[in-house]
């Protein structure tokens, strides 16, 4: 249902998204059977493809040509995919999007090689673009994503962190890649620099909202909807916005302490979910997400008149209101 809504928003881009989908499949082709299986397993697990979508929509404000834009759109999705494969090793995750992860189906080493293969393909693909600016944006983003993850590991189970720590972390973890999708799309399509800057900021605000909603969904969705146990973020020690907003709750403090020792029972997990769901922190977190969305909308308003403006607005709203 959610995916249907998204598809309706970008219906006029459908042929181009199909091109991207085919290119992704081609990019992931390997002479290795294991790599083919692992990559196609990831590809077929779906995903919203919002990063390529942002690349293409931003490019609409300039000289749009899908034969050129695919060299920017495909790598953005590949970088996202590759980092998920490696994240699953770090988090020891067995399930993603309702399917076994590469590491659980094969092993950690296979996941490392698969991630490296995908990153390699991403860079190989984008090297068709000769403008160094596009590469500088992407490379900086890859480095910053890692920095964000290093900080995330450092911050695990640490309750004495503030909102600033959280925002800095999610900026690097998620917002930067969406911001870069918009910026790279604009740069490759030679969009006017002032417009490029607005698109970049739009991507940043949408990305922040996206991650906050993601963090909320981890508590309010069912295990089935998430394709993994609800509350997994907290079980792994990631202190997200809903928790930061109620970090003085004695039960939460106790839960984090037990989670850090890896001794949480299923009963305790369900109890924690109930506490978070019944608290104000979910609504408070969604308010923060809405504030970012409002900022994103403001950027859209100031873009030049173009049919894509409405789509950017719709996609931002979809992201803010999505259910999983």
């Amino acid at each position: 249902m959610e995916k249907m809504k998204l598809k309706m928003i970008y219906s006029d881009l459908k042929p181009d998204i199909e091109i991207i989908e085919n290119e992704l499949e081609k990019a992931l082709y390997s002479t290795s059977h294991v790599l083919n299986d692992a990559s196609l397993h990831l590809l077929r697990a779906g995903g919203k493809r919002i990063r390529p979508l942002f690349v293409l929509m931003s490019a609409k404000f300039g000289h749009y040509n899908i034969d050129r834009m695919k060299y920017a759109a495909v790598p953005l999705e590949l970088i996202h995919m590759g980092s998920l494969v490696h994240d699953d090793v770090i988090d020891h995750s067995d399930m993603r999007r309702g399917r076994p992860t590469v590491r659980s189906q094969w092993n950690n080493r296979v996941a490392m090689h698969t991630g490296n293969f995908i990153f390699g393909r991403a860079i190989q693909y984008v090297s068709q673009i000769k403008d160094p600016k596009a590469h500088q944006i992407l490379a900086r983003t890859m480095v910053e994503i890692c920095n964000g993850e290093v900080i995330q590991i450092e911050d695990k189970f640490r309750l004495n962190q503030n909102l600033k720590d959280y925002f800095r972390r999610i900026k690097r973890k998620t917002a930067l890649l969406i911001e870069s999708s918009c910026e790279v799309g604009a740069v490759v399509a030679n969009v006017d620099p002032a417009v490029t800057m607005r698109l970049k900021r739009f991507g940043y605000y949408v990305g922040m909202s996206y991650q906050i909603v993601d963090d909320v969904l981890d508590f309010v969705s069912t295990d089935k909807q998430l394709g993994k146990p609800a509350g997994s973020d907290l079980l792994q020690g990631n202190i997200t916005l809903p928790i930061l907003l109620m970090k003085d709750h004695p039960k939460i403090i106790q839960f984090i302490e037990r989670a850090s020792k890896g001794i949480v029972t299923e009963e305790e997990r369900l109890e924690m979910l109930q506490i978070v769901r019944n608290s104000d922190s979910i609504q408070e977190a969604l308010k923060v997400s809405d504030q970012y969305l409002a900022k994103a909308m403001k950027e859209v308003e100031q873009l030049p008149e173009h049919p894509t403006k409405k789509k950017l607005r719709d996609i931002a709203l979809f992201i803010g209101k999505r259910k999983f």
Partner: protein
Amino acid sequence: MDATYIKNHIEQLKKDIYRYVQHKTLLKYTGNPLVDENQLFYMLLPFFNGDHWDDEKYEGIITVGIVQASLAEHGLINEYDATSKEQQLTVLSGDYYSGRYYEILANSGNISLIRQLSESVVLRSEHEIRVYEPRQYAIDDWLDSITVIETECISRFYQLYNYDQYLNIMQINLLILRLQNELLNYREGNSSLLLQKMIESFVPVDHLNFEQYLLKKLDVLIQQLQELLRISSIKAELKQYIAERLIR
């Protein structure tokens, strides 16, 4: 030029690689990037031999070293349990180095080398994952895989800058060094997964066991290398440096 001169340059290159990927947290938990001095020697070989050399090429070999370090870090990940903080940060150090090589080359606009190195990462990953393929490979396929794993990044650098004259020497020498290393580990009972796969593929010929086969193979490779060195136009001191590092 003597061995000290060569070693000093290798040491300097190593320091420069460390400097380019310096990261406080990663350094604390995962240490310096893993670099192989034999590989560094071959990255510098065109410079030692007096070929045209400039800042672009030096920066190029720094990034070649960073790519190798990135993949070497990921080789340290435990197959089934990477949950310790050190292991988690080892995953990230490899990713961080991979981002840094791309960033360095993007900042200097060297898109050609970006392309070459990304292709080498793809090819290396395809060969490294072979040990997990259900398919049976012949022993020569495994030797090809070792060659790709040990030399592909440097080969791409040579090809881009027309240093083809060193290609065969580098490939054979790095293959020899890796096989010698594998043989030592085998004798100590610490065979790598790759060597175990080689043993599985081994079909005894002329009553040779696996160790005897490997020794014979090494002899052949060393002879090939010596012949290549004999006919090569590289400086005599460099030939001597390479020859002195071959354990027979």
